[in-house]
């Protein structure tokens, strides 16, 4: 039984400059250390600099998140990416205080999360943010619609009203008809849709996703990714997304934060990561990405030279190379990269072919 | 589906009619037991200690109390310690057969004053060392304690560590055996079987398989009617020879088994108290009823009835 197939949307373009609006979430110098007397680690210059092994031997502690700084703008999809042990799951849990941070600041819409008391924290969890988990976390003894309504039930909404809202959301995620089934009667992908619906039902400001599709088959995974993109278009919520899959990160994320061993490595848009990797680790990471799908013309253009014809097609700097390929190759003249009327550079056949064929480009 | 319902309902109705229709003897308001009571007796709490001889006493006394005096008798199966404890709380009115237990008498009669003696039962308790009849017949000199060391090796078992085994039974029974063995300089070790059941089974085995066995036993006991054990003579009892527990070197005294009642019960004036006070019979009487219960497997009620019907005159004497 297949659910309603979601159409494959276009590759997204990088959105507007994220620095424009006030951030929804602001994280400063965040540390999470596990072990005895954890607080002493962030406070000590010396301990901060130790490697994982040295730190363990010296203090018996593990630093899962080390000095992480970032901001999430409203409406953006912010992806945190890393391999296992990089601290990404710990990080996202620190943001909602499912795990208590050791030190640092987490500010949500101007409010200091770490200072919130138990009551305020519950309120925040009920209304402001919700989370979708890797292993779904559904209640097996309740039907789908009851699972979706669970968050609303917690905050005290009446039965009729919450069921109505739950049914709306169930339809939104494409599970219409399965309201009265039990979780163990659904496939993995459908169960995760229930998880998604549950997270959306409370109309939160921010959605957190902890590797939600890692436990699903590749085909289902693709469907679910498209679902998330579609929902983002429709509902426009801010999302913080954790994954270890680079392709997924590039597909979904407006900006991507790469983590390694608890530390931030690089934070930027997809094309920035591919075009200007911060170090060998990132370069290694993005090695297998089809560059043409991620890089924009900004990265491959060259300055205009005197003998260039300047009446070729005009394209914006943020057009993805792949989309520009046909236009540039079909035109006999090189394309102009223009922004706000100003000529930034030229993109000719060689530039395009270099990317598409030779995987060269950028710094 | 409707058909199933109708069939089911019909079937149930038939069954219901059948159940109510046939054999309609109703549960009447028939009172339990003979309630031709003059009401003056009320409830009588009788402790029953866990040996069959006592059970026989209790069967007969309860039977008479119920049928002749109209009492409601509540029997409580308890070990001696717990039974004496119950005097103070009012849960136990009478103990029909007490073997010595000077320690309990001191605690509850003298010190706490919750119990009083109610006279003798007429039974004479004989504790001692006994051997199976085949052994007494095969080696008649074994009944003299001075020959015990001669036969010590024959009594050896896996439990007695190279010495002869002297088998003791239930720990609630008074025993001086450890001191006796030491003070009479016998090459024996006391092995604790732990229960009267174990002791009786050992004797049964010994008689059946012609095994050597010497152990602690007593009369009156129902088992004697099945296997008549033979007593071994220890140095005769003289008053005061058991004053110091560590230096005992004489046989057990003959116990006049007595009855103990709670002080409260004695003051109550209940006819049951009079019955208990007057109750007395012989070792043979008790052994007979005990045999009915243990060997013939009669119920307490049936065994008591049989004896009471055959000994009406004795019973009348108690009721005066």
């Amino acid at each position, binding site marked *: 039984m297949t659910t309603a197939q979601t159409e494959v949307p276009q590759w997204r373009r990088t959105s507007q400059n994220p620095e424009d609006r006030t951030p929804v979430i602001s994280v400063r110098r965040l540390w999470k250390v596990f072990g005895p007397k954890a607080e002493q680690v962030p406070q000590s210059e010396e301990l901060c600099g130790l490697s994982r092994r040295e730190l363990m031997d010296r203090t018996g502690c593990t630093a899962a998140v080390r000095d992480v700084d970032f901001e999430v703008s409203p409406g953006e999809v912010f992806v945190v990416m890393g391999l296992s042990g990089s601290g990404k799951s710990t990080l996202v849990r620190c943001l909602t205080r499912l795990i208590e941070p050791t030190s640092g600041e987490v500010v949500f819409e101007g409010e200091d999360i770490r200072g919130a008391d138990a009551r305020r924290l519950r309120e925040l969890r009920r209304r402001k943010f919700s989370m979708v988990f890797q292993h779904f976390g559904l209640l097996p003894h309740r039907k789908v619609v009851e699972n979706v309504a669970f968050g609303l039930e917690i905050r005290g909404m009446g039965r009729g009203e919450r069921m109505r809202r739950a049914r709306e959301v169930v339809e939104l995620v494409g599970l219409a008809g399965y309201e009265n089934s039990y979780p163990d009667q659904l496939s993995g992908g459908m169960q995760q849709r229930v998880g998604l619906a549950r997270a959306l039902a409370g109309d939160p400001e921010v959605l957190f996703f902890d590797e939600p599709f890692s436990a699903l088959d590749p085909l289902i995974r693709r469907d679910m990714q498209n679902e998330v993109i579609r929902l983002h278009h429709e509902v426009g919520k801010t999302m913080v997304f954790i994954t270890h899959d680079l392709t997924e990160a590039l597909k979904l994320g407006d900006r991507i934060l790469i983590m390694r061993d608890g530390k931030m490595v690089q934070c930027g848009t997809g094309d920035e990561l591919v075009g200007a990797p911060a170090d060998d680790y990132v370069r290694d990471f993005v090695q297998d990405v089809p560059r043409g799908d991620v890089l924009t013309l900004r990265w491959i253009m060259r300055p205009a030279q005197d003998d260039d014809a300047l009446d070729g097609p005009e394209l914006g700097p943020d057009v993805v190379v792949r989309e520009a390929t046909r236009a540039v190759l079909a035109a006999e003249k090189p394309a102009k990269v223009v922004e706000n009327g100003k000529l930034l550079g030229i993109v000719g056949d060689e530039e395009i072919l270099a990317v598409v064929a030779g995987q060269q480009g950028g710094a | 589906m409707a058909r199933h319902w109708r069939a089911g309902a019909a079937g149930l109705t038939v069954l219901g009619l059948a159940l109510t229709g046939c054999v309609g003897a109703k549960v009447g308001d028939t009172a339990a037991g003979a309630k031709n009571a003059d009401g003056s007796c009320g409830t009588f709490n009788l402790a029953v200690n866990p040996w069959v001889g006592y059970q026989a006493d209790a069967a007969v006394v309860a039977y008479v109390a119920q049928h002749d005096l109209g009492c409601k008798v509540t029997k409580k199966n308890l070990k001696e310690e717990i039974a004496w404890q119950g005097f103070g709380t009012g849960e136990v009115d009478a103990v029909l057969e007490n073997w010595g237990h000077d320690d309990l008498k001191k605690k509850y009669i003298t010190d706490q004053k919750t119990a009083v003696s109610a006279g003798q039962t007429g039974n004479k308790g004989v504790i001692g060392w006994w051997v199976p009849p085949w052994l007494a017949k095969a080696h008649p000199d074994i009944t003299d304690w001075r020959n015990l060391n001669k036969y010590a090796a024959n009594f050896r078992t896996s439990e007695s560590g190279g010495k002869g085994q002297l088998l003791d039974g239930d720990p609630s029974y008074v025993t001086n055996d450890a001191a006796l063995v030491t003070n009479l300089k016998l090459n024996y070790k006391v092995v604790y079987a732990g229960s009267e059941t174990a002791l009786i089974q050992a004797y049964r085995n010994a008689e059946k398989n012609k095994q050597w066995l010497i152990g602690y036993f007593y009369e009156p006991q129902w088992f004697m009617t099945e296997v008549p054990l033979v007593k071994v003579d220890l140095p005769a009892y003289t008053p005061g020879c058991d004053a110091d527990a560590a230096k005992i070197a004489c046989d057990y005294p003959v116990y006049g088994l007595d009855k103990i009642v709670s002080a409260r019960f004695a003051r109550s004036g209940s006819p049951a108290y009079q019955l208990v006070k007057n109750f007395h019979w012989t070792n043979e009487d008790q052994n007979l009823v005990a045999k009915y219960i243990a060997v013939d*497997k009669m119920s307490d009620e049936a065994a008591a009835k049989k004896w009471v019907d055959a000994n009406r005159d004795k019973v009348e004497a108690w009721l005066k």
Partner: protein
Amino acid sequence: MAAVADTSGPVATWRQKVTRPMAVGAILVAWLVLFAVLRGRQTLTLAAADLTSLHRWLNDVNDTVGAGRDSNPLFLYFFNEIRLAIDHLVTFVQSLISQPTAGRPVPQIGWLGVVGIAGYLSWAVGNWRVALLAVAGFTFFGLQGLWQESMDTLALTLSAVLVALLIGIPLGVWAGLSDRCNKIMTPFLDFMQTMPTFVYLAPLTLVFLIGGASAVITTVIYAAPPAIRITAHAIRSVPATTVEAADSLGTTRRQQLLKVLLPLSQRTVVMGVNQTIMAALAMVTIAALIDAPGLGKTVVQALQSLDVGTAFNAGLAIVVMAIVLDRVTTAAAGRADTARRTGGALVRWRRPLLAAGGIGTAFLVYVSHTYVYAAEFPGDGTAGTHIASWADTATTWLQDHLSGLTNAVRDVITYGLLNPFQTLLTDSPWWLVGLTLVALGAVLGGRRAAVTAAVCVGLLVGTGLWSDGMTTLASTAVATVLVMLLGAVFGVWMGRSALVDRLVRPTLDAAQVMPPFVYLVPFLALFGATRFTAIVAAVVYAAPVAIKIIADGVRNVPESTVEATTSVGCTTWQIITKVQLPVARGALTLATNQGLIYVLSMVVVGGLVGAGALGYDVVAGFSQGQLYGKGLAAGLAIVLLGVMFDRITQAAARRTRA
């Protein structure tokens, strides 16, 4: 953390060179050598009737408590209220099903009504198969001529289980939620389950008087720990991801408990109810010693005249009741899941069927209330008489024909194994044995186990019953070895063959539930009043547990592993010894631990059949006032032995699994 630290430095290299078996061997050799040299010195023997000052002090405490009974406000206002409440409960249930009440010669609900209720309730919480079993079982009681006694036992058991659950489930929830509570409670639970009941029977009647209350409380003390432990385990077993998800939605603790933890732990909690019922039934015969009515009393009384047949008949009724209650509660545990899965059609039928069943049952109850034939079970219980005489004949036959063989076996094991080992333990200086135990604890279980061993050894010396403790220890060790042998043989056999499992398991269940008192007499006839008899009784009781654990362990060895070895060409024996047993190592250690605990719980029963030592001391304490203190000390000694070996074997288990 400590484990990580161990593998560095010079100490580690030495530790790596000396393997565990070598260390154990060295300790044992040292012990034997020193024993030969120092034999007979400082053995702390105490004669059977002797008391230490501790025992005398405990006696005095007991006497003071007893003397103050009528005046102490604690008694008057607290214990008395509890007693009255429980007495009312028991009397009420009894008047419903087993005892004649005011004005009626029979209880309120007669046999037909009870059978009807049993069937209906079993069907409602379980399925029709267990309902049929319940009806058959209950009818069987009547056929045995034991209807009233069975109902008395049922009333007592149900009251006790009710009280145990009322106390146990909330405590279990608390222990499940709070680590600290769990840590504090565990020693108490251990104590309640290992302290021999005999020890607190007499004081209990002092406080709660003789009657239903004492019997119920005795049972509750033994039956509540399983309820508490399993509920705590159930709460902790709720998947962490589900709890986290609920947490992330902003649940309060109360919402989390009511909406997530309790519903998800339901199935396991019902299993806990099952275990509570089984534990309660195990107390039936012991409660009879303080005049509790029911089947236990029949068994105990039959023993006085060595009436094996009657005892067996009553014991069989207890087994049947245990089986019925076990199957019904197990079905109840599974019902919630299965009903949902089979879907809607059956669910639609259920409610009207339940209503119809309810009406039918009410009707049966009415009939049994009014008509004699439905109130008193018809017939004379001839089935029971036949069972009894069959049991008698079988026992006599066994005694006649097997005595030679059984006596020989007894002598071989006693002279060959038990006596030498016991001499080694009792004739060594106490400090030598103590050191050995501590050293073994350290090698097998680590530092904490060694500390526990040291503390237990110290306390054991303090009880004044060291020598008796060593005697009991010898018998216990031999019994455990035999239990493990049986466990290995039958466990592997059952684990490898589903058919054998299905055939043997009912026998094992019956052996665990049959009151030991029932098979004491035949054993006495076969083996005499000896330590060996006590060992055999303990083995019969403890082996089923070990067998079942090992069978489960062997069965859980992954199919793929066994397949791989078969395809390489291993023989059956090689597969068993090289693959299945080693992989099931965890199960073997668990079986040893449980086997030992169960064997220890039979020490007191052993005292009734010639084991002497601690078992006899406890029984004596229960029977004689001046030995009360010694009996209490002996009970503590048994608990100490249990704790020491439980901690050592559990720590060893953790290490072998790691």
